[in-house]
């Protein structure tokens, strides 16, 4: 009798992701984080009631990569836009996806107030310590001494202040419910990040309030590093200043687990 070969599908593109090539640079972790978010949205079965708000920055074209209803916000205003979208349709799942310039610099008032109000939205905050889309200028989260297009001699903290730690800041506000920092530089951190994405969406689905994940992310192009070196750079340079961990998990969220 002939041996029968059976092919098993072990992985498929999530329905929440579009089957298109991205414009992201080789080694950039935006694509990876998109994938994790798309997988979790599929897993939770919320694709048909989710609305995404894209930022200004490298992920400005996010709406091309997700098979979700999407709005494109002005620079930094995604949390305000998400507030409007969510308040008039509280049964929908609304998330923003924002970079460090967008969230921590120009949009810092909007994110602080969304968190303060305990807005029932989810925020994915991509911290790669640089302005990617404009070609590598100093970000509010650039590290001391970091050489960028607008700090050619290295970030001078005497002049610009120290980089801002957003997860810690937002966790300190009474309105936030779930604030954690994750990364995606190896298998273990990717798995942890995926779990946090799931928790963040479940926080919103249960009406438990404001959830935010800060991802320490890479920018090989503007850091001037090869993709693998860039992942190491996160681990060696960013993690010491931005420790990974859970900064705020209110009781209501703990009970979800």
């Amino acid at each position, binding site marked *: 009798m002939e041996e029968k070969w059976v092919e098993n599908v072990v992985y498929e593109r999530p329905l929440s992701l579009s089957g298109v090539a991205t414009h992201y640079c080789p080694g950039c972790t935006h694509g990876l984080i998109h994938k994790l978010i798309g997988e979790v949205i599929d897993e939770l079965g919320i694709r048909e009631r989710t609305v995404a708000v894209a930022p200004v920055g490298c992920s400005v074209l996010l709406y091309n990569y997700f098979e979700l209803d999407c709005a494109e916000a002005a620079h930094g205003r995604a949390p*305000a836009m998400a507030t409007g979208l969510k308040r008039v349709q509280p049964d929908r799942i609304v998330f923003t996806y924002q970079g460090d310039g967008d969230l921590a610099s120009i949009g810092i008032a909007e994110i602080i107030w969304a968190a303060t109000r305990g807005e029932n939205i989810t925020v994915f905050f991509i911290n790669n310590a640089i302005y990617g889309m404009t070609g590598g200028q100093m970000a509010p989260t650039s590290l001391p001494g970091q050489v960028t297009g607008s700090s050619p001699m290295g970030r001078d903290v005497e002049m610009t202040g120290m980089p801002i730690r957003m997860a810690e800041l937002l966790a300190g506000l009474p309105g936030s419910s779930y604030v954690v920092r994750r990364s995606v530089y190896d298998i273990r951190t990717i798995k942890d990040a995926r779990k946090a994405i799931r928790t963040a969406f479940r926080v919103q689905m249960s009406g438990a309030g404001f959830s935010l994940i800060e991802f320490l992310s890479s920018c090989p192009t503007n850091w001037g590093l090869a993709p693998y070196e860039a992942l190491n750079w996160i681990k060696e340079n960013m993690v010491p200043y931005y420790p990974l961990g859970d900064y705020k998990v209110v009781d209501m969220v703990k009970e979800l687990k």
Partner: protein
Amino acid sequence: MAKELLKGNVAIAEAAIRAGLQAYFGYPITPQTELLEHMSLRMPQLGRVFLQAESELAAINMVYGASCAGVRVMTSSSGPGISLMQEGLSYIACSEVPVVVVDIMRGGPGLGNIQPTQADYNQLTKGAGHGDFRSIVLAPSSVQEAIDFTVLAFDLADKYRTLAILAGDGMVGQMMEPAELPAMQKPPVSRPNWALTGARSRPKNIITSLFLSAENLEEVNTRLQAKINRIKAEEVRYEEMLANDAEILIVAFGTAGRIAKTAIREARLQGIRAGLLRPITLFPFPFAPLDRLVQDSQRERSVKSVLVVEMSAGQMVEDVRLGVRGRVPVYFYGRTGGAVPLPDEILDQILGLARRQNEVTEPGADYREDLQGPASTPMAA
């Protein structure tokens, strides 16, 4: 419904609610704050959304978000707040979502003061943000019109998927007079097919103002301009008073237009043929009615000069000059800083013009410096 004594700001808020407003986002600023206060009480009572934002910047972006969800939404502010909203207004215009904005104009520039002016005319009618766009701008001159135009603003915003702005001045916002509110309309239950409600059993909807290729963005701009041209052709609104046989045509809007009526009646009693053209839509500006009235100046009894009265240093007067095209002189009388012209001041201008009518009639004479208003009431252009 019976008339009731209503404050302008409260009347606008209640009219919006009765027009089916589903969400309001705003930030306190004098002289419009009663509007926001009324919303804060009534909207939650009706199970609708009210939120006091952290800034006008946030407020307009909340409005943008809610409008993307396809609901009736508005915000209100005054000049300094409208300046902060310009970013959002530009995005909203490009995204073609319907939004109503109320500007209760106060004195400027800068922090200025909280007295009534009309000095946001250019800001509101010439775009109100970066890039090529126009908004429909409605200028009420009474509490009743503030109510009626608020309801109209929602219908026009929906009809054209555009920004509709109610341009009241501090006088309209703050004064109380008898007016009739409309019946309560239920907010629409269904959402438009372009709304961001979740991609359920349909392809995803995207609302964006980003179009990276020149071809795509030019296509968007062409569509916006076509819409603006349709609005220009179909939505011009104005009022005429004794304009048909007027020799001196006053052009004034809002509170200034209302005050001008008193002056015109007095001038008529003194045998001077004065009349009024009061633009109700500041954009689209009533160029055709103005043109018709000035065209008639070829006849024996007709417009010999135009007097523009504004509570500003002269902004609408530029549009009037464009429309008149030098056929008759265009004079300007304005008060700034929150000073409201008295009927007598306008009457003095009319009397002065009537005296000069026989002396100076050549086109372009309006630029002569000796034709300025009385020294005690400057602001001639």
